């Protein structure tokens, strides 16, 4: 009798312990960052923060754990930073060998491509580092999502605004770096899509110090062309800042400088964004940028799916994020979700100047049969790759 009672007692005790131990579900998110090879640029006014991207994921972890308390879910961020010279194979091996199912990739395009080509399954991966179009329309992977907008989304967002203003005759000045070429190619596509015209296309040869010579050179470069807006393709910020106020005719500058589109910028304050900006600045003592936002959105997508499915199970979360039910409130005034054909997070794109938000695309009037957000970037019919 006593024995029976005792064992009942023991069973009860161990059940209580089990309940407590099993009470909190744990998930780890692996953040892989490879530092970029910094390009020497003339405009050296702004420092590139070392925690670019990472800081957004750190904030999202804090938010996720605040929410997680009510659901007995807990998140940990594991950060790994690789230097610029690290071979892509090493990064691939880390992903292949880790037991962590959720991986945020803040990698240069070359390394990201190696990761995709490795064909690793059983991981849910988020690209927050590369805006290259070909990861959205040519080289896809079913378990890879993109929270950073593609270049196509960026140039479409800007183009929609300019076309709406009827500033449709463009004079393009392109820098000498390979990303400048990618940007200008994307601009050309956007121009074709929405009806802008390229009246002149020149390259900035970049031999001299634009900071000292722009006043003399830019008027000459822009003389005797009839155009509405000077479009600059200079992603690293080498010379673009020095075109403004120096054109022969009084013309606005847009593109990568002047008026530009970005996934996120500190001028965004509507839809509660001021709260996110404030939380970010408090945590990381700087302003939030597009890559920080992309990392934040990736982490938030995971925690949102975990909350809705009440689970931290990889398969459940992965399926839910890519289902029709998934929606994310992310301070852009619309619910965000992922495009099934490219894995790209559909989202409104701010169009901003240095100190004030000018607009947010999609612009009113650009209609789409499913979602106006799909007027930015590649729609289903434009995508060549198969994700599933």
């Amino acid at each position, binding site marked *: 009798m006593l024995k029976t009672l005792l064992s009942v007692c023991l069973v009860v005790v161990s059940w209580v312990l089990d309940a407590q131990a099993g009470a909190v579900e744990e998930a780890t998110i692996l953040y892989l960052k490879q530092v970029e090879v910094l390009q020497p640029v003339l405009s050296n006014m702004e420092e590139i923060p070392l925690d670019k991207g990472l800081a957004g994921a750190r904030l999202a972890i804090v*938010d996720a754990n*605040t*929410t997680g*308390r*009510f659901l007995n879910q807990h998140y940990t961020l594991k950060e790994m930073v690789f230097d610029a010279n690290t071979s892509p194979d090493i990064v691939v091996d880390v992903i292949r060998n880790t037991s962590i199912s959720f991986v945020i990739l803040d990698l240069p395009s070359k390394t990201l491509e190696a990761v995709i080509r490795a064909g690793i399954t059983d991981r849910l991966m988020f690209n927050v580092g590369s805006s290259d179009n070909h990861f959205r329309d040519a080289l896809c992977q079913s378990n890879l999502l993109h929270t950073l907008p593609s270049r196509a989304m960026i140039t479409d967002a800007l183009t929609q605004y300019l076309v709406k203003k009827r500033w449709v005759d463009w004079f393009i000045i392109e820098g000498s770096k390979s990303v400048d070429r990618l940007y200008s190619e994307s601009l050309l596509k956007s121009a074709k899509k929405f009806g802008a015209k390229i009246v002149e296309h020149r390259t900035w040869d970049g031999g001299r110090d634009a900071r000292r010579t722009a006043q003399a050179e830019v008027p000459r470069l822009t003389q005797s062309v009839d155009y509405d807006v000077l479009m600059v393709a200079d992603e690293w910020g080498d010379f673009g800042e020095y075109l403004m106020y120096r054109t022969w005719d009084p013309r606005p500058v847009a593109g990568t400088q002047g008026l530009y589109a970005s996934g996120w910028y500190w001028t965004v304050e509507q839809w*509660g964004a001021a*709260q996110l900006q*404030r*939380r970010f600045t408090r945590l990381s003592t700087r302003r939030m940028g597009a890559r920080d936002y992309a990392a934040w959105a990736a982490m938030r997508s995971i925690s*949102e799916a975990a*909350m*809705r499915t009440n689970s931290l199970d990889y398969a459940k979360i992965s399926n839910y994020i890519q289902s029709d039910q998934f*929606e*994310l*409130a992310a301070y852009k*005034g*619309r*619910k965000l979700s992922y495009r099934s054909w490219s894995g790209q997070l559909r989202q409104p794109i701010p169009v901003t100047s240095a100190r004030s938000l000018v607009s947010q695309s999609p612009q009113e009037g650009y209609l789409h049969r499913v979602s*106006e957000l799909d007027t930015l970037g590649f729609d289903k019919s434009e995508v060549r790759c198969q994700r599933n």
Partner: protein
Amino acid sequence: MILNKVLTTFLLIAVQSGQLLFAATAYVSNEKDNTISLIDTDRMEVVDTIPVGQRPRGIALSRDQKLIYICASDDDTIQIFDIQQKKIVGDLPSGADPETFALHPDGRHLYIANEDDNLVTIVDVANSKVVAQIDVGVEPEGMAVSPDGRWAVNTSETTNMVHWIDAKTFELVDNTLVDQRPRHVIFEPDSKLLWASSEIGGTVSIIDTDSKLITKKIGFLIKGIHRDRVQPVGMVLDHTGKYAYVALGPANHVAVVDRKTYEVVKYILVGRRVWHMAFTPDNRYLMTTNGVSGDVTVIDIEKQKAVKSIKVGRYPWGITILP
């Protein structure tokens, strides 16, 4: 004798005009002007504009109707406005960045949502002391206390939950998951049901107080307006028990919802980005604050139609009406 009669008449007139003077007044907080606008609800005109603290949002009457509490969000305080003296006479400790609050039926305990700190602060207004602070989800926003005094509820915009706080023990006892970005909450008079609006989700959830489960979800559809722009925020329930009015933010409409069937019976066009609402004491009019257009729309309840718009300060947010 004649003089006497004249005097009486004079007195009568004085009393009548006195009543006119004490017509109901609507108090509107202007978030981007740091002022409140006073609107005479008989004439439907702004009669005064009074400077208050920084970024005034939530605004509510005290139980005795002598004071108005104003969330001065960027001053991290709740200001106490004396209606008679028409000035700020003090403040309450509120915790950081108070956005909205709700007063317990006991008239003493004020529940305040601290947006930046993920907290709900409870203040005893009688002695200006903080009674308790409760951890809630990310970006606490809406607050309501059940008319029976048992529950205080708070919504957290990023956690997407309604948090249930026991108003006796000040403990968080349950959470209800709702659609994206919950904003406003309001109890039915019998305390049995709670209405919760989700701005980005575009829905209003009806939650059963006993089970804390969602029993009904209301969606909105306005012809010619994309559903993503239909964003429910403020809500009020009418005195007849028949209708709820739901402000739909950038859709610039107020939805009239049948409280039995939960069907939307009408959409009323108002100003741009409609936030919050209040009924006039005679229940003839509903007044809405419209953030972007900077005005207040007056809706005739019987006609279910907007009849007037009144220019106020920049970004009007909250509204409360003194009978």
